[in-house]
């Protein structure tokens, strides 16, 4: 038996909008700690990890650990039927092959039930070790989205480098090059407008902009975004979900070929 009641229903809508472009089908895992999801995109380059802690729900009942396979596009279709102020309740019975989404209007004068079929999804669960990152950048999420969008109009990849000067996003394409440098800036009116750079070691990594742009679909979930970088590790782009948890995107970097591999052999 599973019953999760989320007063701020629009949050779930935003979560789905953030991940459905990257992943088609995924298993939602429910346990006593919370409602979570881990899924890779079809090419196994990017991974999304979502956590909504049980404390964030108005009512949370999960008798045993279960996973529910869903097509995210279909979930999104269901959730689009909910109003932005609606309270959303997720229900599933043991052994059943459906999940029910219940939408209640804030004034309790409209209650809608949507039942969706579940699916069997074979998915690999990756173990993500806790790591010390060489550099962690916190910045306004809208600013990050803007940078990714702008750079994508010029090139396919972005080089993100963190030095003591600041963080630099650069790209190169057929028409030319672009470089955007952000400096640490904490003297702002609102804390969410700050850019905070925490650097232990300089780092520079290359990523495909296509994925970065897909991650920025999570921008409505949070005013700030945290980018954690380490050489030889996937980048983590994290959007905190207030009082509930987070949505984290991992992206494998592009790797420069070894010197000896590029020399002709014959």
């Amino acid at each position, binding site marked *: 038996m599973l019953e999760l009641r989320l007063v701020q229903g629009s949050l779930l809508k935003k979560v789905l909008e953030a991940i459905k472009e990257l992943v088609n089908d995924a298993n939602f895992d429910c346990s006593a700690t919370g409602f979570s999801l881990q899924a890779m995109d079809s*090419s*196994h380059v990017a991974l999304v990890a979502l956590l909504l802690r049980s404390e964030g729900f108005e009512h949370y009942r999960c008798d045993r650990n279960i996973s*529910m396979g869903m097509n995210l596009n279909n979930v999104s279709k269901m959730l689009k039927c909910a109003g932005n102020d609606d309270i959303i309740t997720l229900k*599933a019975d043991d052994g059943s092959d459906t999940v029910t989404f219940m939408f209640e209007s804030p004034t309790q004068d409209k209650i809608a039930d949507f039942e969706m079929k579940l699916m069997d999804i074979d998915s690999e669960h*990756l173990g993500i070790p806790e790591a010390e990152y060489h550099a962690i950048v916190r910045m306004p999420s809208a600013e990050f989205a803007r940078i990714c969008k702008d750079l994508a109009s010029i090139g396919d990849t972005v080089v993100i480098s963190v030095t003591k000067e600041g963080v630099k996003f650069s790209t190169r394409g057929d028409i030319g090059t672009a470089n955007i440098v952000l400096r640490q800036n904490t003297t702002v009116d609102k804390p969410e407008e700050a850019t905070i750079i925490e650097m232990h070691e300089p780092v520079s990594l290359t990523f*495909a902009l296509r994925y970065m742009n897909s991650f920025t679909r999570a921008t409505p979930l949070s005013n700030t975004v945290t980018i954690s970088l380490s050489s030889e590790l*996937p980048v983590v782009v994290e959007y905190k979900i207030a009082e509930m948890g987070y949505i984290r995107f991992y992206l494998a970097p592009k790797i420069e*070929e070894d010197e000896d*591999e590029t020399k*002709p052999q014959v």
Partner: protein
Amino acid sequence: MKEQKFESYFGRKIAIDASMSIYQFLIVVGRTGTEMLTNEAGEVTSHLQGMFTRTIRLLEAGMKPIYVFDGQPPDLKKQELAKRYSKRADATDDLAEAVEAGNKEDIEKFSKRTVKVTKQHNDDCKRLLKLMGVPVVEAPSEAEAQCAALCKSGQASFSLVYAVASEDMDSLTFGAPRFLRHLMDPSSRKIPVMEFEVAKILEELNLTMDQFIDLCILSGCDYCDSIRGIGGQTALKLIRQHGSIETILENINRERYQIPEDWPYQEARRLFKEPEVVTDEEQLQIKWSAPDEEGLINFLVSENGFNSDRVTKAIEKIKAAKNKSSQGRLESFFKPVANTSAPIKRKGSKCVLQSPKQEIKPRIFSLQACYSSGPKLNGGLCLLTLDLGSKHSSPLGRGVCFSA
């Protein structure tokens, strides 16, 4: 066993059984009746055309192919090879008749059966691949065994060959941890790549690797005859019941099943378990390099009459492909772990023969031995076919099915 998109193998190192591919190219590429693609001197170039375009397709998808060529066949295979030789001779006679009679269908059929991969074909392809900057490995004996060994060693060392691509299921018997079918099919056929994982197959069949090898020997392999009357299904039943060929031989009804007098199953088993392979990294020299443009143009355009524009464009593609292969994969950073949550949805019951519901991905597979009398695979070799039941459920539906 799962279907995968061709594109999802980017960045993966894949060992390919070259002889099998060349054979397919000779049959399929640019053939009409007895006519084949040739250069000015009249030498066949179908294999070069095939190898060139398909390899570029792999490179463009970001894959890193390694071609493995056959070495000396093991002694046990000589009998099988002799059979193929005689079949080819028969086909040559039939072809002559068909040409005389002017029967187009027969000409097509028999001319395909006369196809043989010669040393010249192999050497041409090796030269082409080296010019393209794709590594070539010469197996001491069977290419499939060498492919399997590369894939196995990849588990431990830095070389990390992800899977073996072939159409011959022997690779599984040789212990390749992962096996891909239809990787080298033309894109126009739009067949998804079929990925088999030995560990999962064994788990689903509930067999050990030794039992699986015995099963393959019983079902028919290149190295010894099978027992008349025992096909894949009976073989699986017998292995399940008795556990090994030895116990089967002790218990089997000898009047019903005639065991060949000279049946070297133990040697066949040894060939599968300890095949002759190279595992030394130094000796293998697996490296991907930039293409030799001048060499390629010289070889393909001047010597073999390829269209110069096409070759130049293709070389550009190879160079562009280099960039794509640089994208890393998450698995090289994070390792899979077991998920603790149980699926809420109960999985399907055992042995489903009706067409499965669309949303539940069917994972039925049938096991049956089939004799490929046609020319699709090397001569009349007999192989074990593991097929996805859903697509072919009518012919194979009676096989042993599992749903997981």
